[in-house]
């Protein structure tokens, strides 16, 4: 059962193409990571799902309903955290949470109080005096407080310190443990890797890859770290399939895609002091996908 079903979604702003032919599904109960750099089309996709934007083409369904025509019904079961969470500065944190609770029909206040304690937020103060991190915590609490079936979070850890990021990850794991779903956009790959079980990579308004985090990591891509006294010359001939990501103090880091035999043969001729071959991080995958697109 899928909570979100997007097929051939397109969005244009005049002549500017923001999304083209985007298709993806988000299964119920998953923590779905939506990866891409700024301007890739992540926020546009999420805004279409919430009904803030109308798609120029294709279809976007949430809970089996059309994201535009049934948006009010959908939003009864969904909560959204905007990428750049703007709040009512003249209100106190408590005032904002009370307003959200009343506007949603009530029932979320006790959870809001628990979350304020969990995220160590002094909600009695005016939002105008909040730091960026405090604003982000408040925005997260307003999204979580009604225990929605689907949480759509656009870069939720922005502005949070590592301790609070960890607290958020735990909350989100708790959400999916209850069978609810999290759709999570980010350009910080490590957090998606830590948190999500499924991932889609978007670039230039297109999905370039989608699947489970594990399946992406198990593609024929390998992360290579090599060390050699005297370093590696700039003119080092690289075999096809090898991509260098960094070269520093006698250490060369890169990725290898393809069969392993040619790699082993090439490494044997380099007279290395040390070498490690490991599963790629999403960072590596990300860079590889982008390079493929550019090529």
């Amino acid at each position, binding site marked *: 059962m899928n909570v979100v079903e997007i097929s051939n979604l397109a969005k244009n*702003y005049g002549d500017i193409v923001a999304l083209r032919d985007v298709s993806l599904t988000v299964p119920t109960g998953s923590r779905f990571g939506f990866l891409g750099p700024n301007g890739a089309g992540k*926020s546009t996709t999420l*805004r279409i799902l*919430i*009904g*803030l*934007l*109308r798609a120029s083409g294709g279809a976007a369904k949430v809970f089996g309903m059309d994201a535009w025509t049934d*948006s*009010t*019904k959908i*939003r*009864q079961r*969904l*909560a*959204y955290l*905007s*990428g*750049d*969470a*703007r*709040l*009512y500065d*003249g209100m106190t944190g408590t005032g904002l949470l009370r*307003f*959200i609770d*009343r*506007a*949603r*029909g009530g029932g979320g206040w006790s959870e809001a109080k628990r979350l304020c304690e969990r995220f160590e937020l002094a909600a009695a103060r005016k939002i105008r005096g909040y730091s960026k991190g405090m604003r982000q915590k408040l*925005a997260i609490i*307003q999204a979580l407080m009604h225990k929605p079936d689907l949480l759509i979070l656009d870069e939720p850890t922005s502005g949070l310190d590592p301790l609070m990021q960890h607290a958020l990850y735990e909350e989100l794991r708790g959400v999916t443990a209850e069978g609810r779903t999290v759709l999570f956009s980010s350009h910080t790959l490590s957090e998606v890797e830590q948190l999500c079980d499924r991932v889609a990579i978007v670039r230039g308004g297109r999905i370039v890859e989608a699947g489970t985090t594990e399946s992406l990591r198990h593609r024929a891509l390998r992360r290579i770290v090599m060390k050699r006294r005297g370093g590696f010359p700039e003119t080092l001939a690289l075999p096809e399939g090898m991509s260098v990501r960094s070269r520093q103090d006698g250490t060369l880091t890169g990725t290898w895609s393809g069969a392993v035999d040619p790699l082993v043969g090439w490494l044997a001729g380099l007279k290395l002091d040390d070498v490690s071959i490991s599963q790629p991080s999403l960072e590596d995958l990300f860079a590889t996908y982008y390079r493929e697109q550019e090529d």
Partner: protein
Amino acid sequence: MNVALFIKTLRDHRFFILGGSFLMGLFVVVFMFATNSLPMEQTKVWMDVPWIKSLITSLMGSDITGVLTPSGMATFSFTHPVMLAIMIAVVFSMASAGLVGEIDRGTIDLLASLPISRSRIYASVSAALLSCGPLMCVSLWLGAFVGRKLTGQTEIDMGNLVLVAVQFFFIFAFLCGMALGVSAMCSRRVVAITICFGAVLYAFTVNVLSAFWPALKFVSYSSFFRYYAPLKIVETQSVQWSSVAVLSIAGLVFWLAGLLVFRSRDFPAT
């Protein structure tokens, strides 16, 4: 309508609404003191100056020379540009803050992600704005009532001023409809306010110029000030229902146009 949003909109502007209403009432009191201190003969001399007479006639919607009574003088304050400016400032500020202001500040993401339809958001802000009208009308009337008591002008007919306040509500409602309509169509608050003030300036200019330049009489029908004629109400002792109808329909058209746009427009990230 969403009650929480209705209350929030009123709370956000409570000082502005109460302050504006108080200032309007205070202005009426001060104006009545000022006019009471002028000898009626002096006023009549001024009314003999053609351009002053034309200007006052354009503002009052009727020739004042025949109605230079205390009630007639009291209605001056109900149509004075300063008083209208206070009312317009409250209306434009609230209408723009509630719709285009949300888009401009980026808080529309928070509001529009709640399970409230766009029509209900629009209706809630509209209802909050419209509910300020009676307060302003009462404030005007109370100002006149206090002014009457303080100046001892017991011959002022307070019943007639109730009718003027009723007509005032309809020009207020028209301005609400126009401001909400414009606000729903814009993405920048400053643009919406500029358009609204431009419309007021146009209406005021056409209304005043048409008193001096007969060729503009026909164009003056497009000025909403033409449909606010307090002196006619004092003369006829009844609300000008044809003007009320014009103001109501025009305001409703603007409001509906705004609703249609607000329901179907994009809210892009700011």
